[in-house]
């Protein structure tokens, strides 16, 4: 009997301490869960900032015989032979194998599906375009029932179409402006990447 009574006294005495310990654990758990949720709640505009920084990095990446990828692009606008050699011999608007390989090696490290287009900011004329996966994009154009060649030569229509078609699929776009051989006609480099990557 004496031992039983003593045990009840111990629990009664411990109640304030137990309440404080439990309250502390609850506060830590709730705040920890909130922080975890907030970190993963990065907004789309923040992710877009990271993609834009990626695009600048790609512009600075070295390409064979050039200082950088951006140098190659501005060379294309000036009609330089060296730059043209990197464009597909059949379709002058597509990346050549060598350039594709460089881009896939670099952009492919971060993004599985991507597109890269360079076009005149004023007229919308395309200088060239590269894709992570030609089949994926060509198939998307085919499924859209829009004539690819018409889109390609339809200037701005092509660009609007791509964004309108791919954005609902999760493709997000960022761009950067570069000068061309004509100081009054800048070039736009537009990169699309799948947002879930």
């Amino acid at each position, binding site marked *: 009997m004496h031992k039983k009574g003593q045990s009840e006294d111990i629990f009664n005495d411990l109640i304030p301490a137990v309440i*404080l310990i439990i309250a502390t654990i609850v506060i830590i758990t709730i705040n920890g869960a909130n922080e975890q949720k907030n970190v993963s709640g990065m907004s789309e505009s923040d992710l877009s900032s990271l993609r*834009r920084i990626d695009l600048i990095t790609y512009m*600075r990446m070295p390409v064979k015989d050039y*200082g950088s990828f951006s140098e190659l692009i501005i060379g294309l606008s*000036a009609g*330089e032979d060296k730059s043209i050699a990197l464009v597909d011999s059949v379709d002058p608007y597509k990346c050549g194998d060598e350039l594709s390989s460089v881009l896939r090696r670099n952009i492919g490290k971060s993004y599985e599906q991507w597109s890269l287009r360079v076009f005149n900011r004023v007229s919308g004329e395309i200088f060239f375009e590269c894709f992570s996966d030609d089949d994926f994009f060509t198939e998307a154009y085919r499924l859209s029932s829009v004539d690819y060649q018409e889109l390609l030569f339809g200037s701005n229509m092509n660009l609007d179409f791509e964004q309108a078609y791919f954005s609902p699929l999760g493709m997000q776009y960022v761009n950067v*402006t570069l000068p061309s051989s004509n100081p009054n006609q800048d070039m736009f480099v537009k990169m699309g990447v799948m947002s879930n990557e």
Partner: protein
Amino acid sequence: MNKKALAILIISSLGFFIAILLFYSHVGSRQPGPDSPYLGHNAMLAFNAYYEAESQLLYLDSAAIMSWKKSDKTLDSFKINLNEYLTNFSKLHHTDLSVNDYDFIVKDGYIKAITSKELTINSKFYTYTFKPNFKVKAAELPVQEETVSLI
């Protein structure tokens, strides 16, 4: 139960409880920058300003390369071409940068353009300033050790 042990236990529990309350009530105000909805948000705001400055520097670097390619491989011709690009750059970014703001140094096969002028990127919480200096490879140009300026 031993009264002393109980007192120490309650004081310790109370101490932990107060410490954790104080920690979470002050953790937001101790972070640099404005209040943020999640950890790392303020860094992203700073990244935005950095990106804008980097994209402007990329434009200037590219404009310098194009100006040199279009020139007749003299410094004067380079400057005339560059000024056209700087006019366009100023229109794009609402600034007043011109070739007169630069000192040009020809050294080691490069033209280095140095200015004391600063460009500013204003965002909601941060002001980012940078000097739009650049250099362009100009191996064909005779070396001039002295500074050449249009000012």
